[in-house]
């Protein structure tokens, strides 16, 4: 990948066309070719055809950062991490350890050993100056003599300071182009005239950075490993073992004042990890009985495929225990946050999501779409995620057009119950009326097979023709509402012997002709 143009794309939106993903970072070669961050991938490829892409994997970078920080601690006891790839170490008191030059060489050697060969080091009196010093492309390491931070930064441009584009443009328009020119004026000159980012940048330019690396803290981990010694596959025995593991973990969490947010279960068969499952909790909990209930639901909904010899149970995410009053009564307000907080509803939703999935419990939402499939969406109650095609509907306008049903009237229209998947059928039809304004190719369906038998279509609506989405998967369909009549059937022939009809007298179906596939379907029945 060295010297090749590549970019890292944002992967925040799932199932999105790769062409629409934004560029987060680009390599030096890509930048030279004209690729810039915040471009879409399509635009970037138009500029540089040999572009290689990878998805931005935040988890991977964090774990690499953590690993390298663990190695760097050998060179300095105080260490701090900023963005991925940037570390701050305390370089004080190294005179008797070979000096700052030796520190720089050791740091680069250690980074190279871990696979990072392009590292650079900067040593200065404050963190900001050291960061600027490390960005030099001419040398692998830069040491700013003690007390000379301001002299070092004086000739540098103000674009290196953390300024908003507007503030930067304003300062440059006033003729302030270097840090020395900025520091030439007193701080009070900027106060009241510019925003707070300019004041913070002024302080950094004066080598006054409050940030300093600190002693690392021991990361807490809560995990229990149990080697059974023999193979086990019974759910009851598994739960018995898990109960004692959860009791131990709950006690440790309680001692630290923490609650579990997510559990990870790993099952091994002779050192072979064959099942790993993450169990997310809707609300942090430290109650071992509740956690066992949730784990049991997960095992029942997705049973183990093999017997196991060892289990590892990890609390993969935890948080501070919250002390707040639980709502004792189910609120009648439309605020769903309040509803979800109710204990009984929360337990119910946890059980449902563990067994049936997080998207099982949904509520209907109208969307401004022309296709039947896109004119409404099921929004999960728990995650509240919206599909990318969702467009809100002006319900006040729709109600004004349709009106509200009278006191004793049913809601207008019939409910459609879909066939999943749509049922392919055979249809016989006749040519449409030549006087009709429709094209001569329009044909009217007169009979349809349904559940293995022919039925006459006694009444059918004019087709509702919908087409679109030509840029993705083209859709061209004609929708008919047809009334199937069982009383008048086609005469039985040798190939279709007379069978007793199982259908009722009237049946209203949604008949669809897919022009792309040239085939008929019964999308569903109106009930």
């Amino acid at each position: 990948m060295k010297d090749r143009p590549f970019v890292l794309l944002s992967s925040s939106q799932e199932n999105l066309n790769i062409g629409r993903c934004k560029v987060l970072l680009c390599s030096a070669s890509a930048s030279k070719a004209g690729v810039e961050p915040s471009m879409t991938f399509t635009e970037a490829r138009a500029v540089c055809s040999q572009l290689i892409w990878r998805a931005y994997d935040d988890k991977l970078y964090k774990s690499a950062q953590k690993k390298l920080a663990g190695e760097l601690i050998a060179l300095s006891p105080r260490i701090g991490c900023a963005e991925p790839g940037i570390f701050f170490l305390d370089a004080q008191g190294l005179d008797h350890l070979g000096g700052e030059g030796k520190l720089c060489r050791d740091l680069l050697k250690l980074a190279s050993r871990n696979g990072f060969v392009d590292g650079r080091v900067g040593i200065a009196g404050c963190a900001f100056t050291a960061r600027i010093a490390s960005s030099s492309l001419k040398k692998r390491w830069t040491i700013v003599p003690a007390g000379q931070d301001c002299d070092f930064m004086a000739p540098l441009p103000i674009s290196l300071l953390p300024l908003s584009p507007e503030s930067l443009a304003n300062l440059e328009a006033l003729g302030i182009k270097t840090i020395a020119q900025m520091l030439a004026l007193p701080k009070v000159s900027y106060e009241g005239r510019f925003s707070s980012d300019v004041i913070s940048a002024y302080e950094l330019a004066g080598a006054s950075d409050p940030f300093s690396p600190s002693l690392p803290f021991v990361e807490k981990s809560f995990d229990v490993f149990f080697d059974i010694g023999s193979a086990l596959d019974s759910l009851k025995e598994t739960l018995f073992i898990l109960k004692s593991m959860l009791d131990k973990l709950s006690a440790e969490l309680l001692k630290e004042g923490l609650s579990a947010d997510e559990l990870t279960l790993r099952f091994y068969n002779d050192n072979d990890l064959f099942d790993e499952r993450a169990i997310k909790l809707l609300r942090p909990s430290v109650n071992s009985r509740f956690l066992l209930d949730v784990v049991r639901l997960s095992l029942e909904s997705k049973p183990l495929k093999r017997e196991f010899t060892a289990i590892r149970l990890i609390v993969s995410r935890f948080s501070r225990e919250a002390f707040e009053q639980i709502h004792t009564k189910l609120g009648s307000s439309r605020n769903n946050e309040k509803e979800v907080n109710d204990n009984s509803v929360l337990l119910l939703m946890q059980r449902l999501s563990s067994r049936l999935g997080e998207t099982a419990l949904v509520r209907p939402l109208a969307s401004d779409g022309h296709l039947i499939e896109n004119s409404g969406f099921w929004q999960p109650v728990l995650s509240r995620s919206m599909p990318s095609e969702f467009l809100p509907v002006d319900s006040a306008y729709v109600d004004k057009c349709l009106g509200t049903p009278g006191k004793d009237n049913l809601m207008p229209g019939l409910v459609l119950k879909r066939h999943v998947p749509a049922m392919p059928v055979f249809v016989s039809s006749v040519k449409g009326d030549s006087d009709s304004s429709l094209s001569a190719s329009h044909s009217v369906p007169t009979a349809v097979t349904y559940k293995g038998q022919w039925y006459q279509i006694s009444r059918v609506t004019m087709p509702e023709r919908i087409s679109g989405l030509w840029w993705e998967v083209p859709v061209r369909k004609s929708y008919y509402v047809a009334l199937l009549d069982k009383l008048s059937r086609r005469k039985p022939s040798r190939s279709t012997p007379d069978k007793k009809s199982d259908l009722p007298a009237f049946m209203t179906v949604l008949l669809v002709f897919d022009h792309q596939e040239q085939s008929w379907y019964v999308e569903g029945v109106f009930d």
Partner: protein
Amino acid sequence: MVQVGVANLRKELEQLFPGKWLSPGESVRALKTGLSFLDVLSPALVRRHLTEWFGSSSSGKTSVLRTLCSRWCASGLNIVYIDTFDRLLASDWCDVGNKNEGRFWVLRGGVTIPEREAGLDYTKNALWACEQLIRSQAFDVVILDLAERGVITSSVHARLKRSLERSNTSLIVLRDDDSLSSDSEMGKFSSPVSSAAGRVDFGFVEPVRIEYGVDGPISITPTIRSTIARAILRAGMGVSGGGKSLEVSVSPYVSNRLFTHPPVPDRRTSKKG
């Protein structure tokens, strides 16, 4: 005079809060539907009991149920619909419970999720979920749609009944039975349910209402016939026979897909001669 005043007040309160009234003389707590033609016959939906709604796969029962759900939500009741085989369309139900006090949720079986494992027993999951929803006491009405494939065994029936007795929920079970037809089997119990509070049968009948557009028919809506029979719950007595039929018609529907944008204002000026 006082009786007339009380009757008028009751009528007004029933209009304002349909479904939340305990009718005098009834020993069981019933859910009013808010539709006078249904409520005047007998309360078909009893709390803490199971009511079965039978009909063929295309009989109009879900359309009637949708109106009831909308009215119950408007009066503050919480409803959940267990759609075992993912057959409902979201666009048909988005007007139910979206701007009202009560909530309307749907529990989907996951048939349409491609990552689901093959051979999953959707009916078993639906029955389990039904029991959990009843026991949570968070919903006033639970609707279980078993389509034509779901079967409730006697043991499951007993469990649901026990859960209902400890809750304040009314359970409606929707069953598709294409062996019933509207012209012959209405009103008869094909399999008597000893402990169901009621049974309602549905079917499409004539007349069929057709709305015509410029070139031909644009909507077809048959009339829905329903027969309500209610079991009298007294010790030692079985199901009381008899049912009352009624027919309701549904207004034609123009999809909101065609009306989502306000019309372009007509700024044409009159032609000057």
